[in-house]
């Protein structure tokens, strides 16, 4: 985290420094890098986020300034809008991939290596496959393991298709949001003269299209499909790991879960017993109270006699 933050700070500082030398007409920036080590916790994360977001904003702004200065005040900004759309497409794709990312173990398996890479033949994917296929024959698992691998591939294919279907919805949302955005600019009255306004208009345009799109049955199905595909893959890998751990005689997640279930059951039984005991104690106290009252009444009667 601290490294990332430091890196971002340095990027930001370099960027601003560059701007101060290169920006035509002088730079609007006069910025001093905060000491990232002086902040911690959520504030540090926030600084990181701010820096990242500001970089994007400044980059976008500088491009517009450049375009305007090259082509004059009444410039046609279609090139910029195209650029913005590409930028948006990239951001959306990153967001989709990070939201529906492959389970960690599988993500590691699919990290690519170049042919010059020392890890080419010993990368996590090869290593994982080797360890799977090296299961002792005498356990009779070779065939079932092959079947498992096939199931894994099927799940991966389903994940890939689900992701494609889901991404298609976002491409459509982006396109219609951009159309909506351009239409809104055309009809803006009074006209838009600031980047902040432009951003707000974009957000409005996007959210309008987005809320309509996600309310459709198609989107619902695509969302359900990708959610379930990611979970099935994750579960598959967990089950594979459980089998391996079991073969090695190491307690696995499934066994731990069974213990949790038993513990839960026992906790419930214990609570139920405690409740019964408490009710019995209350009854006992009531009986004692009644006995005392009865004794006192009998005593009174005896005295009266």
């Amino acid at each position, binding site marked *: 985290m601290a490294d990332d933050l430091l890196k971002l700070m340095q990027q930001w500082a370099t960027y601003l420094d560059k701007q101060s030398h290169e920006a035509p007409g002088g730079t609007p920036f006069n910025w001093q890098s905060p000491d990232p080590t002086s902040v911690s916790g959520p504030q540090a994360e926030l600084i990181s986020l701010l820096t990242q977001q500001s970089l994007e904003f400044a980059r976008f702004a500088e491009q517009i300034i450049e375009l305007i200065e090259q082509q004059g005040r009444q410039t046609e900004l279609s090139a910029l809008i195209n650029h913005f759309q590409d930028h948006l497409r990239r951001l959306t794709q990153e967001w989709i991939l990070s939201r529906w990312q492959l389970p960690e173990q599988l993500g590691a398996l699919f990290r690519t290596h170049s042919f010059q890479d020392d890890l080419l033949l010993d990368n996590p994917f090869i290593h994982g496959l080797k360890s799977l296929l090296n299961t002792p024959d005498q356990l009779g698992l070779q065939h079932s393991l092959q079947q498992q691998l096939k199931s894994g591939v099927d799940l991966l294919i389903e994940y890939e298709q689900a992701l494609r279907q889901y991404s298609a919805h976002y491409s459509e949302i982006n396109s219609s949001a951009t159309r909506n955005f351009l239409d809104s600019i055309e009809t803006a009255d009074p*006209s*838009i003269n600031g980047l902040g306004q432009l951003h707000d208009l974009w957000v409005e345009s996007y959210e309008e299209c987005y809320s309509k799109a996600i309310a459709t049955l198609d989107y619902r199905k695509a969302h359900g499909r990708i959610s379930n595909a990611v979970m099935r893959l994750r579960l598959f890998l967990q089950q594979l790991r459980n089998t391996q751990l079991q073969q090695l005689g190491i307690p696995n997640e499934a066994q731990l879960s069974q213990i949790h279930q038993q513990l839960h059951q026992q906790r419930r039984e214990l609570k139920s017993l405690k409740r019964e005991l408490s009710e019995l104690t209350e009854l006992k106290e009531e009986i004692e109270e009644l006995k005392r009252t009865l004794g006192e009444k009998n005593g009174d009667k005896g005295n009266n006699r």
Partner: protein
Amino acid sequence: MKGLSLSAETIREELQTFNNRLQQSYQVLQQIEEVDVGATPREEIFRNDRVRLYYYPPTETGGSKLLPPVLICYALVNRPYIADLQPDRSLIGSLTRQGVPVYLIDWGYPEPSDRYLTLEDYIEDYLDSCVRASSKHAAQEKINLLGICQGGTFSLCYTALHPERIERLITLVTPVDFHTADFTLSHLAMEVDADLAVETYGNIPGELLNDTYNSLMPMRLGVQKNLGLPKQLSDREKALNFLRMEKWINDGPDQAGEAFKQFIQQFFQQNLLLKGEAEIGGWKVDLKQIKQPILNIIGRHDHLVPPSSSKALKQATSSRHYKELIVDAGHIGVFVSSRALKQVPAAICDWLDSPAD
């Protein structure tokens, strides 16, 4: 483009302002050491496993009337300190200042060993024991129950199952009809395999739910919120407000697997609460058993629980004393925004103080 008149000069000015605020934000953030939440004095009066029950005594306001106590049942999906975020944004603080003794249930953070906790455990054990403990502490036979969001749905279930223990019922931003056309969260939950989710994750990670909520308005809660940050953070008090809220947003506990599954399947996917077919521990939840006076508070701009879902309560119970209050706020704003806090606690106090018949 007709509606666009950007000039390099204006953009430079805008960037300059943005940058100045950014610098101020960095300075402010560097000066903030701790983000504190929970402002109102309280004491723990009961615990059951990870569940805690807190008591917030009414503030001595010299001559102000002491009102009947209220037990707050918050949702499982977030932490209950949002009801007492900071002195000037505290539903609990506002209530105690107006003479209401408040009890608050804190469900705690479920651990992996809590995966098998069911809705029966939450409602028939934890909520029930808190109702009993608060009634005993307040020396009342019945208590007023105030449920927020999912806690409101729990409160409805509990009141339907144990009407003899509840005096009055207040529901805040509570989902009742899970199948209204504009209930996006429910719409998205329809195709998700809840059995698979629990088999895969055990307890459902809080982050996963947070991502889901954020995905309902990705641009507004992403780009727009982030770009507005320098303005928000350039002032210390505003920055602290923001950080407190962020702390709460990112502090979503994991959800006990079984209870989550039951809630998704029975409530979101099958809408059984409204059909009178939801089951808690083998007992059917019949909302018609609820005859208590009800105050139903709804956020007009609630994007998580749309007003249409909460309004279904009006026809669902047998209460002859149903009152609805629609607040000009979103889901959280109903009990956090300064504007709503001028309206909501006062309305609750008036209602508690008014005769039921």
